[in-house]
């Protein structure tokens, strides 16, 4: 009975994910597509929960649905209203529909097959056994953290580099512009901020601490911290100009730099890149994770702000002067 319900929920999730994905790709209204994307992210997080991957579910819920959603919505604000509705002739729309319909028909059949065979898939657990076998050689008890920071540390190192590069690319496009509307913010929003910010910081620290033995870790903690920073931004909080110079840049690059330093140190010490001395001491992994969390939080929040800080006398992001004077 429980198994049947499980399959039913899986099927429902898979079908709604497919339909949502198609709808968000097919719509010509960018705002609608963004909202659908956020809904898609939330359902995707549920799908990860169903697949017994709480680490990914946490990351998907915070980054995929939350922060990417805000990122897309603020990017949408910068577009002029003409560009918001992408030009899409009715004909090409209909043609894509004709291609998609058979695909949509095949999908459920495939999904049913997958669902029926899913116990079989779960029984062949891939690399789990060999990871758990080697867990005692590493300074962490949680297999996912071990994989992320040790077994495939090279990938994680390059992922942080990609995040850093993304912000560098955003900064090279244009100087920062005021991002939110000039209307005074509601006192209720300030109250919410006062209530949620401590909770967010605490949850972030908790996830960070948990990362060494249970689902959680640097990425999730950093993303939650970024959510807190975004709440601050939405409530008109600013980084003072004198902090938006070297301090901000160090914060952004810190995670990658420290990771790279450890990797290079391992190269000098043991002769292999990222081969931690002593199989990865826990304090080493912990310091990488701490730097990564802070950097990821700063990187995600700066990506949402979009645009490099202009000079040290203005705050980052700058305040909107008055509705008429900000056109330039």
């Amino acid at each position: 009975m429980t198994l049947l319900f499980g399959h039913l929920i899986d099927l429902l999730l898979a079908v709604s994910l497919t339909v949502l994905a198609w709808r968000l790709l097919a719509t010509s209204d960018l705002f609608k597509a963004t909202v659908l994307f956020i809904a898609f992210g939330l359902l995707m997080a549920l799908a990860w929960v169903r697949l017994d991957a709480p680490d990914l579910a946490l990351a998907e819920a915070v980054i995929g649905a939350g922060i990417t959603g805000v990122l897309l919505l603020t990017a949408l604000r910068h577009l002029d209203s003409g560009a918001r509705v992408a030009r899409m002739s009715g004909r090409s729309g209909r043609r894509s529909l004709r291609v998609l319909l058979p695909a949509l028909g095949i999908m459920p059949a495939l999904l049913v097959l997958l669902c029926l065979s899913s116990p079989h898939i779960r029984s062949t657990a891939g690399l789990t056994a060999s990871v758990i076998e080697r867990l005692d050689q590493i300074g962490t008890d949680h297999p996912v953290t071990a994989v992320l920071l040790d077994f495939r540390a090279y990938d994680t190192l390059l992922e942080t580099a990609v995040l850093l590069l993304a912000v560098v690319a955003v900064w090279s496009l244009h100087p920062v512009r005021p991002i939110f509307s000039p209307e005074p913010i509601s006192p209720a929003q300030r109250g919410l901020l006062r209530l949620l910010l401590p909770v967010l910081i605490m949850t972030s620290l908790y996830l960070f601490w948990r990362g060494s033995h249970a689902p959680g870790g640097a990425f999730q903690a950093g993303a939650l911290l970024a959510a807190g920073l975004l709440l601050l931004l939405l409530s008109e909080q600013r980084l003072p100009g004198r902090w938006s110079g070297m301090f901000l840049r160090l914060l952004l690059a810190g995670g990658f730099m420290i990771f790279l330093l450890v990797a290079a140190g391992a190269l000098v010490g043991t002769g292999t890149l990222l081969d931690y001395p002593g199989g990865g001491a826990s304090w080493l992994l912990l310091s990488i994770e701490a730097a990564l969390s802070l950097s990821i939080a700063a990187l995600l929040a700066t990506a949402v702000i979009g645009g490099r800080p202009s000079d040290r006398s203005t705050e980052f992001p700058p305040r909107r002067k008055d509705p008429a004077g900000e056109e330039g």
Partner: protein
Amino acid sequence: MFLRDATTCLLLLAAASFFLAGLVGLLRFPDVFCRLHALTKADNLGLGLVCIALIIQADSWHGAVRLLLTWFLVLVSGATVAHLIARKALQQGQTPWRNR
């Protein structure tokens, strides 16, 4: 044991009805303000009932506290977001719907 499960089932069914009503309201109501009204009922009462139903099943007190905390956070943020959306709609000059 049976009583516990039965109470959970009843509470979950009640929650489902609130969610359904909220959904119908969201789809059918004429303007933003009415839709927000329908949505908050689903969020606050529906989720509250789900939380109570699960607290009955929780095997430790910290599990129960976590559920209560979840409800509380959704209540606070849901109420604030509804207020912000309604405020923005009013600023944009949308007038509340009236049945003439």
